[in-house]
Protein backbone atom coordinates (compact mmCIF):
# COMPACT_ATOMS: atom_id res chain seq x y z
CA UNK A 1 0.00 0.00 0.00
CA UNK A 2 1.43 3.37 -1.01
CA UNK A 3 1.32 6.48 1.11
CA UNK A 4 -1.45 7.88 -1.07
CA UNK A 5 -3.54 4.71 -0.69
CA UNK A 6 -3.35 5.22 3.05
CA UNK A 7 -4.23 8.89 2.77
CA UNK A 8 -7.05 8.31 0.30
CA UNK A 9 -8.81 5.95 2.68
CA UNK A 10 -8.91 8.67 5.34
CA UNK A 11 -9.19 11.64 3.03
CA UNK A 12 -12.36 13.20 4.55
CA UNK A 13 -10.91 12.97 8.05
CA UNK A 14 -7.49 14.32 7.08
CA UNK A 15 -8.85 17.16 4.99
CA UNK A 16 -11.19 18.06 7.83
CA UNK A 17 -8.16 18.39 10.11
CA UNK A 18 -6.38 20.65 7.64
CA UNK A 19 -8.82 23.52 8.00
CA UNK A 20 -10.45 24.10 11.33
CA UNK A 21 -14.04 25.28 10.93
CA UNK A 22 -14.44 28.17 13.33
CA UNK A 23 -16.36 31.40 12.94
CA UNK A 24 -13.81 33.76 11.32
CA UNK A 25 -12.78 36.97 13.03
CA UNK A 26 -14.13 39.04 10.10
CA UNK A 27 -17.67 37.74 10.54
CA UNK A 28 -19.09 40.82 12.29
CA UNK A 29 -17.43 43.15 9.82
CA UNK A 30 -18.83 41.09 6.97
CA UNK A 31 -22.34 41.40 8.36
CA UNK A 32 -21.87 45.14 8.73
CA UNK A 33 -20.96 45.29 5.06
CA UNK A 34 -24.11 43.49 4.07
CA UNK A 35 -26.24 46.00 5.98
CA UNK A 36 -24.79 48.71 3.79
CA UNK A 37 -25.73 46.99 0.56
CA UNK A 38 -29.17 47.09 -0.97
CA UNK A 39 -30.97 43.88 -1.78
CA UNK A 40 -32.04 43.22 -5.33
CA UNK A 41 -35.75 43.75 -5.88
CA UNK A 42 -37.61 40.53 -5.39
CA UNK A 43 -39.46 40.91 -8.65
CA UNK A 44 -36.23 40.44 -10.56
CA UNK A 45 -36.62 36.74 -9.87
CA UNK A 46 -37.99 34.74 -12.75
CA UNK A 47 -39.49 31.28 -12.91
CA UNK A 48 -38.11 28.73 -15.34
CA UNK A 49 -41.54 28.00 -16.71
CA UNK A 50 -44.51 29.93 -17.95
CA UNK A 51 -48.00 29.40 -16.59
CA UNK A 52 -50.15 28.08 -19.38
CA UNK A 53 -53.49 28.60 -17.68
CA UNK A 54 -54.90 30.64 -20.50
CA UNK A 55 -55.24 28.68 -23.71
CA UNK A 56 -57.34 29.24 -26.82
CA UNK A 57 -60.57 27.32 -26.80
CA UNK A 58 -62.78 26.80 -29.84
CA UNK A 59 -66.21 28.35 -29.34
CA UNK A 60 -69.46 27.26 -30.98
CA UNK A 61 -70.18 29.47 -33.98
CA UNK A 62 -73.43 30.05 -35.82
CA UNK A 63 -73.67 31.35 -39.40
CA UNK A 64 -73.46 35.16 -39.55
CA UNK A 65 -73.24 37.79 -42.33
CA UNK A 66 -69.50 37.70 -41.95
CA UNK A 67 -68.60 40.08 -44.77
CA UNK A 68 -70.65 42.87 -43.24
CA UNK A 69 -69.42 42.13 -39.75
CA UNK A 70 -65.83 41.98 -40.86
CA UNK A 71 -66.10 45.35 -42.60
CA UNK A 72 -67.72 46.95 -39.55
CA UNK A 73 -65.14 45.39 -37.24
CA UNK A 74 -62.27 46.56 -39.42
CA UNK A 75 -63.58 50.12 -39.44
CA UNK A 76 -64.08 49.94 -35.68
CA UNK A 77 -60.55 48.69 -35.14
CA UNK A 78 -59.08 51.42 -37.29
CA UNK A 79 -61.05 54.07 -35.38
CA UNK A 80 -60.01 52.59 -32.03
CA UNK A 81 -56.40 52.39 -33.10
CA UNK A 82 -56.47 56.03 -34.21
CA UNK A 83 -57.97 57.05 -30.87
CA UNK A 84 -55.48 55.00 -28.90
CA UNK A 85 -52.58 56.42 -30.93
CA UNK A 86 -53.81 59.97 -30.45
CA UNK A 87 -54.41 59.32 -26.76
CA UNK A 88 -51.00 57.83 -26.21
CA UNK A 89 -49.36 60.70 -28.04
CA UNK A 90 -51.21 63.11 -25.85
CA UNK A 91 -50.61 61.45 -22.47
CA UNK A 92 -47.12 59.98 -22.72
CA UNK A 93 -44.62 61.98 -20.66
CA UNK A 94 -41.01 62.46 -21.65
CA UNK A 95 -39.15 59.38 -20.34
CA UNK A 96 -37.04 61.32 -17.83
CA UNK A 97 -37.40 64.50 -15.80
CA UNK A 98 -40.41 66.21 -14.35
CA UNK A 99 -43.83 64.78 -15.10
CA UNK A 100 -47.36 65.05 -13.77
CA UNK A 101 -48.33 62.82 -10.88
CA UNK A 102 -50.46 59.89 -11.99
CA UNK A 103 -51.70 56.97 -9.96
CA UNK A 104 -49.89 56.10 -6.75
CA UNK A 105 -49.77 52.31 -6.61
CA UNK A 106 -48.85 50.13 -3.62
CA UNK A 107 -48.89 46.48 -2.59
CA UNK A 108 -51.30 45.52 0.20
CA UNK A 109 -51.32 43.02 3.03
CA UNK A 110 -53.89 40.99 1.07
CA UNK A 111 -51.39 40.37 -1.70
CA UNK A 112 -53.12 42.73 -4.10
CA UNK A 113 -51.89 45.82 -5.91
CA UNK A 114 -54.05 48.90 -5.54
CA UNK A 115 -54.06 52.56 -6.43
CA UNK A 116 -54.24 54.78 -3.39
CA UNK A 117 -55.27 58.40 -2.94
CA UNK A 118 -52.32 59.92 -1.04
CA UNK A 119 -54.60 62.48 0.62
CA UNK A 120 -57.38 60.22 1.88
CA UNK A 121 -55.88 56.73 1.74
CA UNK A 122 -58.83 55.50 -0.33
CA UNK A 123 -57.75 52.48 -2.36
CA UNK A 124 -58.98 51.10 -5.66
CA UNK A 125 -58.10 47.54 -6.73
CA UNK A 126 -55.75 47.34 -9.69
CA UNK A 127 -54.42 43.77 -9.73
CA UNK A 128 -56.21 41.28 -7.53
CA UNK A 129 -56.69 37.53 -7.17
CA UNK A 130 -55.56 34.61 -5.05
CA UNK A 131 -51.89 35.14 -5.87
CA UNK A 132 -49.58 37.35 -3.77
CA UNK A 133 -48.76 40.35 -5.95
CA UNK A 134 -46.25 42.97 -4.75
CA UNK A 135 -43.39 45.27 -5.71
CA UNK A 136 -45.14 47.30 -8.45
CA UNK A 137 -42.86 49.40 -10.64
CA UNK A 138 -44.15 51.76 -13.36
CA UNK A 139 -42.38 52.15 -16.68
CA UNK A 140 -40.98 55.61 -17.47
CA UNK A 141 -43.90 56.37 -19.79
CA UNK A 142 -46.43 55.32 -17.17
CA UNK A 143 -48.06 52.83 -19.54
CA UNK A 144 -46.85 49.55 -18.07
CA UNK A 145 -46.30 48.19 -14.62
CA UNK A 146 -44.13 45.22 -13.60
CA UNK A 147 -44.71 43.37 -10.36
CA UNK A 148 -43.82 40.21 -8.49
CA UNK A 149 -46.35 37.36 -8.38
CA UNK A 150 -46.18 34.23 -6.26
CA UNK A 151 -48.60 31.60 -5.09
CA UNK A 152 -49.76 31.82 -1.47
CA UNK A 153 -47.36 29.97 0.81
CA UNK A 154 -44.59 29.94 -1.75
CA UNK A 155 -41.44 32.04 -1.83
CA UNK A 156 -40.92 31.38 -5.52
CA UNK A 157 -42.09 34.26 -7.64
CA UNK A 158 -42.40 35.34 -11.23
CA UNK A 159 -42.14 38.78 -12.73
CA UNK A 160 -45.35 39.85 -14.42
CA UNK A 161 -46.30 42.85 -16.50
CA UNK A 162 -49.63 44.63 -16.94
CA UNK A 163 -51.05 47.72 -18.54
CA UNK A 164 -51.35 50.73 -16.25
CA UNK A 165 -55.09 50.09 -15.76
CA UNK A 166 -54.39 46.54 -14.54
CA UNK A 167 -55.47 44.87 -17.77
CA UNK A 168 -53.34 42.58 -19.91
CA UNK A 169 -51.57 40.78 -17.06
CA UNK A 170 -48.93 38.47 -18.49
CA UNK A 171 -45.52 37.01 -17.58
CA UNK A 172 -42.84 39.56 -18.34
CA UNK A 173 -40.32 37.20 -19.93
CA UNK A 174 -40.58 34.06 -21.96
CA UNK A 175 -37.55 32.36 -20.42
CA UNK A 176 -36.23 32.20 -16.91
CA UNK A 177 -32.75 33.41 -16.10
CA UNK A 178 -30.73 34.40 -13.10
CA UNK A 179 -31.78 38.02 -13.49
CA UNK A 180 -30.16 40.32 -10.96
CA UNK A 181 -31.25 43.74 -12.16
CA UNK A 182 -34.06 45.19 -14.23
CA UNK A 183 -34.39 48.72 -15.61
CA UNK A 184 -36.99 50.15 -17.95
CA UNK A 185 -35.79 51.71 -21.19
CA UNK A 186 -37.33 54.91 -22.60
CA UNK A 187 -39.06 52.91 -25.35
CA UNK A 188 -42.33 51.31 -24.33
CA UNK A 189 -42.06 47.57 -23.66
CA UNK A 190 -38.26 47.61 -23.63
CA UNK A 191 -36.00 46.92 -20.67
CA UNK A 192 -32.40 46.31 -19.67
CA UNK A 193 -31.72 43.01 -17.94
CA UNK A 194 -28.61 42.11 -15.99
CA UNK A 195 -28.19 38.37 -15.56
CA UNK A 196 -25.61 36.08 -14.02
CA UNK A 197 -24.05 33.67 -16.50
CA UNK A 198 -21.46 31.27 -15.05
CA UNK A 199 -20.92 33.62 -12.13
CA UNK A 200 -20.40 36.67 -14.30
CA UNK A 201 -22.84 39.52 -14.82
CA UNK A 202 -23.98 40.19 -18.38
CA UNK A 203 -26.48 42.70 -19.70
CA UNK A 204 -29.03 42.45 -22.51
CA UNK A 205 -31.75 44.60 -23.96
CA UNK A 206 -35.12 42.88 -24.09
CA UNK A 207 -38.25 43.52 -26.12
CA UNK A 208 -40.98 42.79 -23.60
CA UNK A 209 -43.59 42.44 -26.34
CA UNK A 210 -41.77 39.61 -28.08
CA UNK A 211 -39.33 38.41 -25.42
CA UNK A 212 -36.44 38.88 -27.85
CA UNK A 213 -33.17 39.58 -26.04
CA UNK A 214 -29.97 41.07 -27.39
CA UNK A 215 -26.87 40.56 -25.28
CA UNK A 216 -24.45 43.48 -25.19
CA UNK A 217 -20.85 42.58 -26.11
CA UNK A 218 -19.19 43.83 -22.92
CA UNK A 219 -16.01 42.51 -21.37
CA UNK A 220 -17.17 43.54 -17.89
CA UNK A 221 -18.58 41.74 -14.86
CA UNK A 222 -21.80 43.73 -14.90
CA UNK A 223 -23.60 44.43 -11.65
CA UNK A 224 -26.29 46.77 -13.01
CA UNK A 225 -27.17 48.71 -16.12
CA UNK A 226 -29.16 51.94 -16.44
CA UNK A 227 -30.31 53.92 -19.44
CA UNK A 228 -28.53 57.28 -19.70
CA UNK A 229 -31.31 59.89 -20.01
CA UNK A 230 -31.36 61.91 -23.24
CA UNK A 231 -28.56 59.83 -24.73
CA UNK A 232 -28.57 56.66 -26.78
CA UNK A 233 -26.25 55.20 -24.17
CA UNK A 234 -26.21 52.91 -21.17
CA UNK A 235 -24.33 53.39 -17.89
CA UNK A 236 -22.84 50.14 -16.65
CA UNK A 237 -21.89 49.32 -13.07
CA UNK A 238 -19.13 46.70 -13.16
CA UNK A 239 -17.64 44.77 -10.28
CA UNK A 240 -14.01 45.55 -9.39
CA UNK A 241 -13.09 43.54 -6.32
CA UNK A 242 -15.00 44.94 -3.36
CA UNK A 243 -15.75 48.09 -5.32
CA UNK A 244 -17.33 49.00 -8.62
CA UNK A 245 -16.41 50.97 -11.72
CA UNK A 246 -18.81 52.89 -13.94
CA UNK A 247 -18.76 52.79 -17.73
CA UNK A 248 -20.75 54.52 -20.41
CA UNK A 249 -21.41 52.46 -23.54
CA UNK A 250 -23.41 52.99 -26.70
CA UNK A 251 -26.84 51.36 -26.69
CA UNK A 252 -25.50 48.42 -28.73
CA UNK A 253 -22.86 47.75 -26.08
CA UNK A 254 -19.90 49.09 -28.09
CA UNK A 255 -17.54 51.98 -27.42
CA UNK A 256 -17.19 51.38 -23.68
CA UNK A 257 -15.29 54.09 -21.83
CA UNK A 258 -14.79 54.46 -18.08
CA UNK A 259 -16.33 57.28 -16.09
CA UNK A 260 -13.60 58.78 -13.89
CA UNK A 261 -14.75 58.20 -10.31
CA UNK A 262 -13.28 57.28 -6.94
CA UNK A 263 -11.63 53.88 -6.65
CA UNK A 264 -13.79 53.36 -3.56
CA UNK A 265 -17.15 53.49 -5.39
CA UNK A 266 -19.76 50.96 -4.25
CA UNK A 267 -23.26 49.97 -5.35
CA UNK A 268 -25.28 51.30 -8.27
CA UNK A 269 -25.23 55.02 -9.12
CA UNK A 270 -28.13 57.37 -9.86
CA UNK A 271 -28.31 59.53 -12.98
CA UNK A 272 -29.67 63.05 -13.25
CA UNK A 273 -32.72 63.35 -15.49
CA UNK A 274 -30.77 65.31 -18.10
CA UNK A 275 -28.19 62.52 -18.27
CA UNK A 276 -25.20 64.74 -17.54
CA UNK A 277 -24.37 63.79 -13.96
CA UNK A 278 -23.89 60.62 -11.99
CA UNK A 279 -24.07 60.41 -8.18
CA UNK A 280 -22.75 57.45 -6.23
CA UNK A 281 -21.63 56.28 -2.82
CA UNK A 282 -18.11 55.45 -1.68
CA UNK A 283 -16.69 53.41 1.15
CA UNK A 284 -13.14 54.49 1.95
CA UNK A 285 -10.85 52.81 4.47
CA UNK A 286 -11.25 55.61 7.00
CA UNK A 287 -14.07 57.84 5.80
CA UNK A 288 -16.99 55.49 5.39
CA UNK A 289 -20.05 56.18 3.29
CA UNK A 290 -19.81 59.40 1.30
CA UNK A 291 -21.77 60.70 -1.71
CA UNK A 292 -19.94 61.96 -4.79
CA UNK A 293 -21.10 63.52 -8.05
CA UNK A 294 -19.33 63.49 -11.41
CA UNK A 295 -20.09 64.96 -14.83
CA UNK A 296 -20.19 61.88 -17.05
CA UNK A 297 -18.47 63.58 -20.00
CA UNK A 298 -16.43 66.33 -18.36
CA UNK A 299 -15.31 64.59 -15.16
CA UNK A 300 -14.84 66.76 -12.09
CA UNK A 301 -15.63 64.03 -9.57
CA UNK A 302 -16.27 65.62 -6.16
CA UNK A 303 -17.87 64.89 -2.81
CA UNK A 304 -21.10 66.58 -1.80
CA UNK A 305 -20.78 65.30 1.76
CA UNK A 306 -17.98 66.31 4.09
CA UNK A 307 -14.75 64.39 3.73
CA UNK A 308 -14.07 64.71 7.44
CA UNK A 309 -14.60 61.70 9.62
CA UNK A 310 -17.85 61.88 11.54
CA UNK A 311 -20.36 59.40 12.86
CA UNK A 312 -22.57 59.38 9.77
CA UNK A 313 -22.57 57.04 6.78
CA UNK A 314 -24.30 58.25 3.61
CA UNK A 315 -25.64 55.72 1.13
CA UNK A 316 -28.03 54.97 -1.79
CA UNK A 317 -28.29 58.33 -3.57
CA UNK A 318 -31.27 59.07 -5.86
CA UNK A 319 -31.62 62.23 -7.94
CA UNK A 320 -34.80 64.32 -7.81
CA UNK A 321 -36.65 64.65 -11.15
CA UNK A 322 -35.33 68.18 -11.64
CA UNK A 323 -31.77 67.18 -10.73
CA UNK A 324 -31.33 69.75 -7.94
CA UNK A 325 -31.53 67.38 -4.97
CA UNK A 326 -30.38 63.91 -4.01
CA UNK A 327 -32.22 61.59 -1.64
CA UNK A 328 -29.99 59.44 0.58
CA UNK A 329 -29.96 57.24 3.64
CA UNK A 330 -27.96 58.66 6.54
CA UNK A 331 -26.82 55.81 8.77
CA UNK A 332 -25.32 56.22 12.21
CA UNK A 333 -21.84 54.76 11.84
CA UNK A 334 -21.49 51.22 13.11
CA UNK A 335 -25.24 50.66 13.33
CA UNK A 336 -28.05 49.78 10.97
CA UNK A 337 -30.09 52.77 12.12
CA UNK A 338 -30.85 55.32 9.46
CA UNK A 339 -32.86 58.38 8.53
CA UNK A 340 -33.98 59.58 5.13
CA UNK A 341 -32.13 62.75 4.14
CA UNK A 342 -31.99 65.09 1.19
CA UNK A 343 -28.83 66.83 -0.05
CA UNK A 344 -28.44 69.67 -2.49
CA UNK A 345 -26.91 68.15 -5.65
CA UNK A 346 -24.38 71.00 -5.79
CA UNK A 347 -23.26 70.20 -2.25
CA UNK A 348 -24.31 73.57 -0.88
CA UNK A 349 -26.02 73.79 2.46
CA UNK A 350 -26.55 71.19 5.12
CA UNK A 351 -28.38 67.90 4.69
CA UNK A 352 -32.01 67.88 5.72
CA UNK A 353 -33.06 64.74 7.57
CA UNK A 354 -36.67 63.74 7.84
CA UNK A 355 -39.07 61.23 9.33
CA UNK A 356 -38.52 58.51 11.91
CA UNK A 357 -35.22 56.73 12.52
CA UNK A 358 -35.43 53.01 11.69
CA UNK A 359 -33.31 49.90 11.80
CA UNK A 360 -32.89 47.63 8.80
CA UNK A 361 -34.49 47.39 6.38
CA UNK A 362 -34.21 51.15 5.87
CA UNK A 363 -36.99 53.25 4.40
CA UNK A 364 -37.59 53.27 0.65
CA UNK A 365 -37.91 56.96 -0.27
CA UNK A 366 -38.61 58.38 -3.73
CA UNK A 367 -39.72 61.65 -5.29
CA UNK A 368 -43.15 62.17 -6.79
CA UNK A 369 -43.02 62.59 -10.58
CA UNK A 370 -43.69 66.33 -10.27
CA UNK A 371 -40.84 66.67 -7.80
CA UNK A 372 -42.91 68.39 -5.12
CA UNK A 373 -43.12 65.52 -2.64
CA UNK A 374 -41.11 62.66 -1.20
CA UNK A 375 -42.89 59.41 -0.35
CA UNK A 376 -41.05 57.04 1.99
CA UNK A 377 -42.09 53.49 2.78
CA UNK A 378 -40.98 52.28 6.25
CA UNK A 379 -41.20 48.46 6.19
CA UNK A 380 -40.28 48.07 9.87
CA UNK A 381 -42.92 50.59 10.98
CA UNK A 382 -45.51 49.45 8.42
CA UNK A 383 -46.16 53.07 7.54
CA UNK A 384 -45.67 55.49 4.66
CA UNK A 385 -44.60 59.08 5.27
CA UNK A 386 -45.06 62.01 2.93
CA UNK A 387 -42.74 65.03 2.98
CA UNK A 388 -42.44 68.20 0.96
CA UNK A 389 -39.52 68.03 -1.46
CA UNK A 390 -37.38 70.14 0.87
CA UNK A 391 -37.86 67.59 3.65
CA UNK A 392 -40.29 69.73 5.63
CA UNK A 393 -43.89 69.15 6.63
CA UNK A 394 -43.55 65.39 7.14
CA UNK A 395 -46.69 63.49 8.03
CA UNK A 396 -47.68 59.85 8.24
CA UNK A 397 -49.70 58.81 5.21
CA UNK A 398 -53.24 57.45 5.68
CA UNK A 399 -52.36 54.05 4.21
CA UNK A 400 -50.37 51.12 5.50
CA UNK A 401 -47.04 49.75 4.32
CA UNK A 402 -46.29 46.05 4.40
CA UNK A 403 -42.94 44.32 4.23
CA UNK A 404 -42.00 43.96 0.58
CA UNK A 405 -45.25 45.53 -0.63
CA UNK A 406 -43.57 48.34 -2.52
CA UNK A 407 -44.86 51.58 -3.99
CA UNK A 408 -44.56 53.33 -7.35
CA UNK A 409 -45.91 56.57 -8.76
CA UNK A 410 -47.13 56.79 -12.35
CA UNK A 411 -45.63 59.47 -14.56
CA UNK A 412 -48.02 61.37 -16.85
CA UNK A 413 -47.49 64.07 -19.45
CA UNK A 414 -47.23 67.50 -17.80
Amino acid sequence: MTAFDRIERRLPELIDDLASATVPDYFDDMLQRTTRSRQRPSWSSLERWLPMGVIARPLPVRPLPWRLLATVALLGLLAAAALIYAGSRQHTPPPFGLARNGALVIGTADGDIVTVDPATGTTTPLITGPTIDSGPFFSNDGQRIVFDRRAAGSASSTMFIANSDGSGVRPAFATGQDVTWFEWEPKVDHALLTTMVAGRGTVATVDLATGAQTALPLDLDVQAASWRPNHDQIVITAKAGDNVTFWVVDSDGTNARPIPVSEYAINEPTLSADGTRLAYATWEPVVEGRIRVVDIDAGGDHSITTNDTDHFVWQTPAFSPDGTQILVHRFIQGTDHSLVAVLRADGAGPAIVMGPETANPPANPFFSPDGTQILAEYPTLKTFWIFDANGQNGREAPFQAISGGGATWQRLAP
Partner: protein
Amino acid sequence: MDQRELVVRAQRGDHDAFAVLAGAFVARLDAAARLILRDHELARDAVQEGFLRAWRNLPTLRDPDRFEGWLRSLVVRSCIDVLRRRGRRPIEVELLPIDGPAVADIASIVADRELLDVALARLQPEQRAVVVLHYYLGLPLPEVARTLGIPLGTAKSRLHRSLAAMRAAIDADMETPVSPIVGGQFA
Protein backbone atom coordinates in the same frame (compact mmCIF):
# COMPACT_ATOMS: atom_id res chain seq x y z
CA MET B 1 -37.81 29.35 13.75
CA ASP B 2 -36.71 26.89 11.06
CA GLN B 3 -34.23 27.63 8.30
CA ARG B 4 -36.89 28.07 5.65
CA GLU B 5 -38.65 30.73 7.71
CA LEU B 6 -35.34 32.51 8.29
CA VAL B 7 -34.63 32.50 4.55
CA VAL B 8 -38.08 33.85 3.72
CA ARG B 9 -37.66 36.61 6.30
CA ALA B 10 -34.19 37.46 5.01
CA GLN B 11 -35.57 37.57 1.48
CA ARG B 12 -37.91 40.30 2.65
CA GLY B 13 -35.07 42.39 4.04
CA ASP B 14 -34.82 41.05 7.61
CA HIS B 15 -31.10 41.40 8.24
CA ASP B 16 -31.27 39.75 11.65
CA ALA B 17 -32.58 36.61 9.98
CA PHE B 18 -29.74 36.77 7.48
CA ALA B 19 -27.24 37.13 10.32
CA VAL B 20 -28.53 33.91 11.91
CA LEU B 21 -28.24 32.07 8.59
CA ALA B 22 -24.78 33.45 7.93
CA GLY B 23 -23.62 32.41 11.39
CA ALA B 24 -24.76 28.87 10.74
CA PHE B 25 -22.72 28.43 7.58
CA VAL B 26 -19.77 30.81 7.70
CA ALA B 27 -17.31 28.60 9.62
CA ARG B 28 -17.53 25.66 7.24
CA LEU B 29 -17.49 27.84 4.13
CA ASP B 30 -14.55 29.88 5.39
CA ALA B 31 -12.63 26.64 5.95
CA ALA B 32 -13.58 25.40 2.48
CA ALA B 33 -12.40 28.69 0.94
CA ARG B 34 -9.08 28.43 2.78
CA LEU B 35 -8.62 24.92 1.46
CA ILE B 36 -9.41 25.93 -2.11
CA LEU B 37 -7.42 29.16 -2.16
CA ARG B 38 -4.69 28.24 0.35
CA ASP B 39 -4.47 31.86 1.44
CA HIS B 40 -6.30 33.33 4.42
CA GLU B 41 -6.61 36.81 2.94
CA LEU B 42 -7.95 35.58 -0.39
CA ALA B 43 -10.33 33.24 1.41
CA ARG B 44 -11.64 36.10 3.49
CA ASP B 45 -12.21 38.15 0.33
CA ALA B 46 -14.01 35.28 -1.37
CA VAL B 47 -16.24 34.47 1.60
CA GLN B 48 -17.14 38.11 2.12
CA GLU B 49 -17.93 38.51 -1.55
CA GLY B 50 -20.01 35.34 -1.54
CA PHE B 51 -22.06 36.39 1.47
CA LEU B 52 -22.47 39.91 0.11
CA ARG B 53 -23.79 38.44 -3.14
CA ALA B 54 -26.08 36.21 -1.12
CA TRP B 55 -27.59 39.14 0.78
CA ARG B 56 -28.00 41.23 -2.34
CA ASN B 57 -29.51 38.47 -4.44
CA LEU B 58 -31.46 36.64 -1.75
CA PRO B 59 -34.84 37.98 -2.94
CA THR B 60 -34.17 36.32 -6.29
CA LEU B 61 -33.70 32.86 -4.75
CA ARG B 62 -36.74 30.96 -5.95
CA ASP B 63 -36.77 28.06 -3.51
CA PRO B 64 -35.86 28.86 0.12
CA ASP B 65 -35.10 25.18 0.73
CA ARG B 66 -32.15 25.50 -1.66
CA PHE B 67 -30.51 28.24 0.39
CA GLU B 68 -27.57 26.20 1.69
CA GLY B 69 -26.55 24.90 -1.73
CA TRP B 70 -27.08 28.29 -3.30
CA LEU B 71 -24.91 30.02 -0.68
CA ARG B 72 -22.21 27.36 -1.03
CA SER B 73 -22.24 27.86 -4.77
CA LEU B 74 -21.83 31.62 -4.41
CA VAL B 75 -18.86 31.26 -2.09
CA VAL B 76 -17.10 28.62 -4.20
CA ARG B 77 -17.64 30.64 -7.36
CA SER B 78 -16.29 33.69 -5.54
CA CYS B 79 -13.16 31.65 -4.81
CA ILE B 80 -12.74 31.01 -8.53
CA ASP B 81 -13.45 34.67 -9.29
CA VAL B 82 -10.83 35.80 -6.79
CA LEU B 83 -8.23 33.68 -8.55
CA ARG B 84 -9.27 34.97 -11.96
CA ARG B 85 -8.90 38.55 -10.79
CA ARG B 86 -5.48 37.73 -9.39
CA GLY B 87 -4.44 36.41 -12.78
CA ARG B 88 -3.73 32.99 -11.29
CA ARG B 89 -0.60 34.20 -9.61
CA PRO B 90 1.22 31.52 -7.65
CA ILE B 91 -0.18 31.32 -4.16
CA GLU B 92 2.04 30.88 -1.17
CA VAL B 93 1.64 27.50 0.36
CA GLU B 94 0.70 27.94 3.97
CA LEU B 95 0.93 25.08 6.39
CA LEU B 96 -1.78 25.52 8.96
CA PRO B 97 -1.29 24.99 12.66
CA ILE B 98 -2.43 21.55 13.55
CA ASP B 99 -4.06 20.62 16.82
CA GLY B 100 -2.74 17.36 18.19
CA PRO B 101 -5.17 14.46 17.81
CA ALA B 102 -5.87 12.12 20.71
CA VAL B 103 -4.70 8.97 18.95
CA ALA B 104 -1.72 6.76 19.27
CA ASP B 105 -0.12 7.16 15.84
CA ILE B 106 0.22 10.93 16.02
CA ALA B 107 3.38 10.98 13.97
CA SER B 108 1.75 9.04 11.16
CA ILE B 109 -1.32 11.24 11.06
CA VAL B 110 0.69 14.44 11.15
CA ALA B 111 2.88 13.11 8.38
CA ASP B 112 -0.14 12.16 6.28
CA ARG B 113 -1.74 15.56 6.81
CA GLU B 114 1.43 17.27 5.70
CA LEU B 115 1.64 15.06 2.64
CA LEU B 116 -2.01 15.82 1.85
CA ASP B 117 -1.37 19.52 2.30
CA VAL B 118 1.51 19.42 -0.14
CA ALA B 119 -0.52 17.40 -2.62
CA LEU B 120 -3.46 19.80 -2.45
CA ALA B 121 -1.10 22.71 -3.00
CA ARG B 122 0.02 21.23 -6.28
CA LEU B 123 -3.50 21.02 -7.71
CA GLN B 124 -5.11 23.64 -9.90
CA PRO B 125 -7.69 25.68 -7.95
CA GLU B 126 -10.56 24.16 -9.96
CA GLN B 127 -9.27 20.70 -9.05
CA ARG B 128 -8.98 21.65 -5.39
CA ALA B 129 -12.53 22.93 -5.50
CA VAL B 130 -13.80 19.52 -6.63
CA VAL B 131 -11.78 17.73 -3.95
CA VAL B 132 -12.88 20.12 -1.20
CA LEU B 133 -16.55 20.01 -2.19
CA HIS B 134 -16.53 16.22 -2.38
CA TYR B 135 -14.33 15.23 0.52
CA TYR B 136 -14.59 18.19 2.89
CA LEU B 137 -18.17 19.36 2.41
CA GLY B 138 -19.31 15.82 1.64
CA LEU B 139 -21.25 16.65 -1.52
CA PRO B 140 -22.13 13.89 -3.97
CA LEU B 141 -20.66 14.47 -7.42
CA PRO B 142 -23.93 15.66 -9.04
CA GLU B 143 -24.12 18.37 -6.36
CA VAL B 144 -20.44 19.19 -6.90
CA ALA B 145 -21.19 19.64 -10.60
CA ARG B 146 -24.19 21.88 -9.86
CA THR B 147 -22.20 23.97 -7.41
CA LEU B 148 -19.40 24.58 -9.88
CA GLY B 149 -21.73 24.96 -12.85
CA ILE B 150 -20.04 22.17 -14.80
CA PRO B 151 -21.39 18.95 -16.38
CA LEU B 152 -21.40 15.85 -14.19
CA GLY B 153 -18.92 14.14 -16.52
CA THR B 154 -16.53 17.03 -16.15
CA ALA B 155 -16.80 16.86 -12.37
CA LYS B 156 -16.09 13.12 -12.42
CA SER B 157 -13.07 13.41 -14.68
CA ARG B 158 -11.78 16.43 -12.77
CA LEU B 159 -11.95 14.50 -9.51
CA HIS B 160 -10.22 11.52 -11.10
CA ARG B 161 -7.43 13.68 -12.47
CA SER B 162 -7.12 15.49 -9.15
CA LEU B 163 -6.64 12.27 -7.23
CA ALA B 164 -4.12 11.07 -9.81
CA ALA B 165 -2.19 14.31 -9.49
CA MET B 166 -2.23 14.05 -5.71
CA ARG B 167 -1.00 10.49 -5.89
CA ALA B 168 1.86 11.53 -8.18
CA ALA B 169 2.76 14.44 -5.92
CA ILE B 170 2.83 12.31 -2.80
CA ASP B 171 4.73 9.49 -4.45
CA ALA B 172 7.28 11.97 -5.74
CA ASP B 173 7.56 13.52 -2.33
CA MET B 174 8.12 10.17 -0.70
CA GLU B 175 10.89 9.37 -3.16
CA THR B 176 12.72 12.66 -2.69
CA PRO B 177 15.94 11.92 -0.82
CA VAL B 178 16.59 13.80 2.38
CA SER B 179 18.94 16.73 1.76
CA PRO B 180 22.34 16.09 3.18
CA ILE B 181 23.39 18.33 6.01
CA VAL B 182 26.05 20.70 4.93
CA GLY B 183 29.21 20.24 6.83
CA GLY B 184 29.43 22.33 9.97
CA GLN B 185 25.68 22.90 10.23
CA PHE B 186 24.04 22.03 13.49
CA ALA B 187 20.72 20.21 13.35
